[in-house]
């Protein structure tokens, strides 16, 4: 395979070529031209371009960005807010950190364009507390943008006022969930709530709020620059543009790769990542991060494509690919994943709080080899309840990896069922 066939640098094109601390470098590479272009357009026209581009949210849920913006624009109530979700807590993900550290103005430009299109005056960038360096880069870039008149009152004499505050989190995964994020900004403990209403109508301080992921915003200047129709030529029918992929685990060249949608997982692992150290075999691949599905290596021909994934009841979330080689113990990995969610659960609802604790106990029974047939049935009921009855995405998605191990690697559980099982049941 030609390893460059799937690479297309759009969001990462300036990485390493500009000094991310210099706004002049950014401007010399066409930076803020899209903002100028956008300010000459109407908000409605900008939203149309974004709709035509086919851009879907890169935070995991793949909601069409243009529709979200339209909902915010049409929602009653003021002021409205725009929030960039840079909480990036999903294990296996680091793309948003790279975007902020290597090209912070691209993100800022994207947010300003969206705020102008939806008529918003105040924005936040919510950065996880662990990302001190990214936060410092973004703060510095914001200050530079203010001095140049890209932020503040009467931006570029277009009669548009807008500014952005940085808000840093304090170490909590669930705060990446929209409502938990909103209440954290309001200065409360980050706990999720039921939806609807959605933030587009009832967000920060109960006002209409646009929340998007860092990578989503970073696409905006490119869409404005090339036009929505042109952008939509990149990728596949269901998936437009490029995707930043965070490749990690047992792989020769882990790292951040920007690929065109439609690239296969195998080409990413072997073509870009150089395969598995010491030519070991792949045991399992986790897509999206801890909350994502796991697949066996013989499914790695699957492309990064929303439709193909959906057909297989899979998703690639925010774009992590975690490779695990033949040496791993599958149940041990599941225990770690569930342990993560157990630690990060906000504890508000029973299916998630208690379900995760019970799942850990059950997993231990399999790991210790004392599980009986009944435990398998119990595990099935437990994870079903969690997916169905948890309030927020954390509890709903936490059992995904277990579900997929039961589907693709049933022997991992079966082989651990105690031999005297029939007597015990």
């Amino acid at each position, binding site marked *: 395979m030609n390893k460059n066939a799937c690479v297309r640098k759009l969001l990462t094109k300036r990485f390493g070529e500009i000094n991310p601390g210099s706004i002049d470098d950014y401007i010399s590479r066409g930076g803020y031209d899209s903002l100028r272009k956008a300010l000459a357009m109407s908000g409605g026209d900008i939203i149309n371009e974004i709709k035509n581009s086919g851009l879907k949210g890169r935070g995991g849920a793949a909601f069409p960005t243009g529709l979200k913006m339209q909902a915010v624009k049409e929602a009653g109530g003021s002021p409205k807010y725009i929030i960039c979700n840079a909480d*990036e*807590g*999903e*294990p*296996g*993900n*680091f793309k*948003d*950190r790279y975007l902020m550290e290597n090209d912070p103005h691209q993100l800022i430009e994207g947010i300003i364009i969206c705020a102008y299109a939806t008529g918003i005056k105040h924005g936040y960038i919510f950065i*996880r*507390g*662990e*990302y*001190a*360096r990214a936060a410092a880069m973004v703060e510095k870039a914001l200050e530079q943008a203010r001095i140049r008149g890209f932020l503040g009152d009467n931006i570029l004499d277009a009669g548009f006022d807008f500014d952005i505050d940085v*808000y*840093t*989190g*304090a*170490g*909590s*995964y669930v705060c990446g969930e929209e409502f938990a994020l909103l209440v*954290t*900004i*309001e*200065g*409360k*403990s*980050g706990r999720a709530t039921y939806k609807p209403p959605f933030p587009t109508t009832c967000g920060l301080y109960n006002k209409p709020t646009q929340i998007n992921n860092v990578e989503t915003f970073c696409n905006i200047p490119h869409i404005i620059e090339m036009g929505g129709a042109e952008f939509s030529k990149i990728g596949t029918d269901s998936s437009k543009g490029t995707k930043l992929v*965070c*490749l*990690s*685990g*047992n792989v020769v060249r*882990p*790292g*951040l790769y920007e690929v065109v949608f439609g690239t296969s997982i195998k080409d990413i692992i072997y073509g870009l990542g150089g395969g598995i150290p010491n030519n070991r075999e792949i045991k399992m691949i*986790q897509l999206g991060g*801890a909350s994502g599905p796991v697949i066996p290596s013989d499914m790695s021909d699957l492309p990064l494509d929303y439709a193909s994934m959906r057909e297989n009841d899979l998703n690639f979330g925010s774009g*992590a690919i*975690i490779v*695990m*080689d033949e040496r*791993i113990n599958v149940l041990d*990995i599941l225990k*770690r*994943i569930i342990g*993560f969610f157990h*630690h*990060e659960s*906000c504890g508000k609802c029973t299916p998630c709080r208690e379900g995760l604790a019970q799942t850990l106990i059950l997993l231990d029974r399999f790991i210790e080899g004392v599980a009986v047939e009944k435990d398998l049935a119990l595990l099935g009921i437990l994870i079903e309840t969690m997916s169905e009855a948890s309030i927020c995405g954390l509890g709903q998605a936490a059992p995904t990896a277990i579900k997929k191990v039961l589907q693709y690697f049933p022997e991992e559980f079966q082989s651990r069922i105690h031999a005297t099982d029939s007597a015990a049941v």
Partner: protein
Amino acid sequence: MQVKEALEKFGRTPDKLIGAMLAYQKTTPCNYLTQEDIREFAKETGLPESRVHSVASFYSLLSTKPRGKYIIQVCHDVPCYVNNSTNVVIELEQRLKTKMGQTTDDGLFSLEYSSCLGCCDKAPAMQIGDNLYGNLTAEKISSVLAEHRRKSHE
């Protein structure tokens, strides 16, 4: 820094509380918020003490228990785990003569587990304060510890 100072710098509205608490905590000798501190934050912001306490105990970067001057957070999520993060923990425990979750006798280092640090491409990884360390080896761990010991004498 005093609680008052932190709030003056950040602002007294509820949305500034977490930032002010983080900044204040950094300046305390044992990296945590005492019951007294929490009471003062409540008084100064006009928020109920229970609310301030719930915030202080919810977030993993805030602590209501005393900790070391430097907090070593070792990532133990899957990408780091399959790259032998367990060895990092063993190495640290041996060098620091302490256990995970505890603080060294000299009060210099606390050892904690952490969720993914967003550094999985350089697994295994750990963080001390604002500094991230990836591709950890025994040698690298030793030099990072030495660097912090030196710094603590400055």
